[in-house]
C-alpha cells in the first residue's frame, strides 16, 4: 500500500478571510469489504475535532471517490459524527481512491487521500464459520438418526393431531361419495412449504388411491402442476392402481393470486368436496379459501409456516399444522427411516437452541446484574458464535 497523498486543492472550496474553518477528518482508511463478491469498499475515519455536540462548526461530511486515477466524484453527503461509509457501487478490476471533506458553512476541508483499493471476491465467507459448524453438527445428528432408524431401531415421534385426522378425513370423503380438494398454496417449487405440501400429498393421495376416492387439485404454478402430477402418479402406482390416475386430477388455473382464489371458490361451491387440504404457502387468500371450505361443510386440514395466515386457519379449519408441524408431517406420515431420522436430527438442533438460550440468559443476567466476569465472557462468546452477520 502506498502512502496517501494530499487532496488536490481544486477539489476543496475554501472560503475567503473570516471563513469558518474546520479541521479535516483523520486516519481515513479504505478497505475491501470482507467476504463479499467484490462489490463494496468500507471507509472509516476519525471525525473532525471541530465536530462537536455544542457550537459545532462541522455541518457534516462529503465522501469523494476517484476511479482508476480519473476525476473525483462526490459519492455521498453524511451527517455530523459520521465515521464510516460503505461504497456499494464498486466493481472488480478497478482501482478506487477516496477522500472525505468536512463541511462547514464556508466550504469543504478535504482529508488526505486513501491508498488505492481494489475490491476482491472471496469464495469462502469465513465470518460464517460457526454457522457452518452448527450446520455440520445438525447434519451429523440427522445422519446418525437416519442410520439408527435404518438399523431397525424404532424412533419415537409424538402424535400430531392434524395428521391423525388425515385417514378419517379421506374416509369421510369416500363414504359421502364426494371428492377431496388439495390446495398446495400459491408459491412455486422454490418455496420449502410447497415442497412439504407435496410430500404430504404423496401420503394423502396414497390413501385416496387405496380408498378409491376422488381428488382434484387446482394449482397456481405450472411447475407445481408438473410436480404434483408426478407425485400423484407415483402414489397411484405404489397403491397398485396406476389405471385410476389421470392428469386431469391436477390442473393449472392462473398465476394471479385472486384469480386463482375466485376459481377455487367456485370449484368448492360446485363440487362440494367432503375434505379440503390447505397445505403450503398462503397469503391474503387464506381466509377466503378456508371460509368457503367451511361454508360447503368440508372437513378442513390446514398447515402453513406463515405466521400472519395461521390465525385464519386456526379460526376456520378443523385441524391446523402450525409452522414446524407442517415440515414434520411428511416424516411422521411416511414413517420412513430417512425422514424420521431427519426429524429427530432437527430436534437435536432445537435442543441445542434451548440449551444455548438457557445458558445465555443465565450468563447475561449474572453478568449484567452482578458483574460476574466469567459470565460476561461466556455471554459474549455465545453472542459471537450465534451472530450471522
Amino acid at each position, binding site marked *: 500500500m502506498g502512502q496517501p497523498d494530499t487532496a488536490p486543492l481544486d477539489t476543496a472550496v475554501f472560503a475567503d478571510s473570516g471563513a469558518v474553518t474546520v479541521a479535516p477528518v483523520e486516519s481515513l482508511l479504505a478497505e475491501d469489504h470482507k467476504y463479499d463478491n467484490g462489490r463494496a469498499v468500507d471507509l472509516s475515519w476519525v471525525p473532525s475535532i471541530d465536530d462537536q455536540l455544542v457550537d459545532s462548526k462541522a455541518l457534516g461530511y462529503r465522501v469523494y471517490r476517484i476511479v482508476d486515477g480519473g476525476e473525483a466524484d462526490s459519492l455521498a453527503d453524511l451527517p455530523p459524527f459520521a465515521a464510516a461509509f460503505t461504497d456499494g457501487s464498486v466493481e472488480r478490476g478497478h482501482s478506487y481512491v477516496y477522500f472525505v471533506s468536512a463541511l462547514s458553512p464556508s466550504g469543504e476541508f478535504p482529508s488526505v487521500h486513501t491508498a488505492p483499493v481494489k475490491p476482491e471476491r472471496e469464495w469462502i465467507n469465513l465470518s460464517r464459520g460457526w*454457522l457452518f459448524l452448527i450446520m455440520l453438527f445438525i447434519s451429523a445428528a440427522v445422519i446418525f438418526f437416519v442410520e439408527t432408524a435404518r438399523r431397525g431401531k424404532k424412533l419415537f415421534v409424538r402424535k400430531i393431531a392434524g395428521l391423525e385426522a388425515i385417514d378419517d378425513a379421506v374416509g369421510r370423503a369416500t363414504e359421502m361419495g364426494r371428492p377431496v380438494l388439495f390446495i398446495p398454496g400459491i408459491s412455486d417449487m*422454490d418455496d420449502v412449504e410447497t*415442497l412439504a405440501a407435496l410430500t404430504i400429498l404423496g401420503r394423502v393421495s396414497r390413501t385416496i388411491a387405496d380408498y378409491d376416492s376422488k381428488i382434484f387439485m387446482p394449482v397456481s404454478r405450472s411447475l407445481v402442476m408438473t*410436480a404434483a402430477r408426478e407425485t400423484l402418479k407415483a402414489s397411484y402406482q405404489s397403491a397398485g392402481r396406476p389405471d385410476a390416475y389421470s392428469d386431469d386430477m391436477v390442473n393449472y388455473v392462473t398465476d394471479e393470486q385472486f384469480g386463482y382464489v375466485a376459481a377455487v371458490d367456485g370449484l368448492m361451491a360446485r363440487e362440494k368436496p367432503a375434505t379440503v387440504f390447505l397445505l403450503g404457502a398462503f397469503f391474503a387468500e387464506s381466509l377466503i379459501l378456508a371460509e368457503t371450505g367451511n361454508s360447503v361443510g368440508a372437513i378442513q386440514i390446514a398447515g402453513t409456516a406463515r405466521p400472519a395466515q395461521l390465525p385464519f386457519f386456526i379460526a376456520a379449519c378443523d385441524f391446523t399444522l402450525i409452522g414446524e408441524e407442517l415440515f414434520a408431517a411428511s416424516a411422521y406420515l411416511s414413517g420412513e427411516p430417512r425422514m424420521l431420522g431427519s426429524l429427530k436430527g432437527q430436534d437435536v438442533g432445537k435442543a441445542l437452541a434451548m440449551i444455548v*438460550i438457557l445458558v*445465555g*440468559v443465565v450468563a*447475561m443476567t449474572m*453478568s*449484567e446484574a452482578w458483574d460476574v466476569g466469567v459470565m460476561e465472557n461466556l455471554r459474549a462468546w455465545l453472542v459471537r458464535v450465534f451472530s450471522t452477520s
Partner: protein
Amino acid sequence: MEHFALWLGAFLTLGILSFLYKDNAWYKLSEAVFVGISAGFWFATLFWDNLVGKFWDGKGEEPMLWVGAALGLLMLFRLLPKVGWLSRWPLAFIVGATSGLWLMNYLASNIMSQVQATILPVFSSGFGAGFDADLATIVGNLVIFVGTFTGLVYFFFSKEHKGVFGGAARVGIFFIMITFGASFGYTVMSRMSLLIGRIDFLLGDWLGMIG
C-alpha cells in the same frame, strides 16, 4: 372507452361480490373472465420478461442463462411419452437447490438470529454494575425468554407432552395463540383496507357518490 372500462370493472366487481349470496351465473362469468385474462396476462408477462427480457437479450453476457434455458427445455419433454422422464431433471434440480439454499437461510434466521436475540437479562438486582434496565424491560425480556423457550418445547417432537415437559409445551402454545390473536386483529384491519378500496371504486369512481 374509459366509461366502458369503468362500467365493466363495476359489473365484474359486483359479479365477484355476488358469491357472498351464492354461486350463480354472474359469478361464474366474472370468475371465467378473471381467470382467463389473468392467465393470459401471466403468460405474456413471463414470455416477455423471462424468455425475451432475461434469456434472449442477455444470453451473450451471462452463460448461466443457457443452463436455465436447457432445464426449461427439458420440461417440454413431458409432451413426448418415451423421453418424458427427462422432465424430472429440472424438477429435481429445483427441489435440490431450493432445499440447499433454504437450509442455510433457515438456520441463520430461524435458529442463529433467534437464539442470539433471546439472550437477554431477566433480573435486576438493583446494585449490579452497569445494569440500568427498568421493570418494563425486565418483564419484556422475561416474556421473550419464556415464550421462545416454551415455544421450542412445543415444537419438540421427540418427547411426549407429559409432566413438566407437557406443562412447558402448554405454556408455549399459550404464547403462540396470544401471538396469533394479535396477528388476527392486525391482519383483519389490513383486509378491511382491501374492502374499502373496492367500495371506494364502486361509490366513488363508478357512481360518483363520494369525492
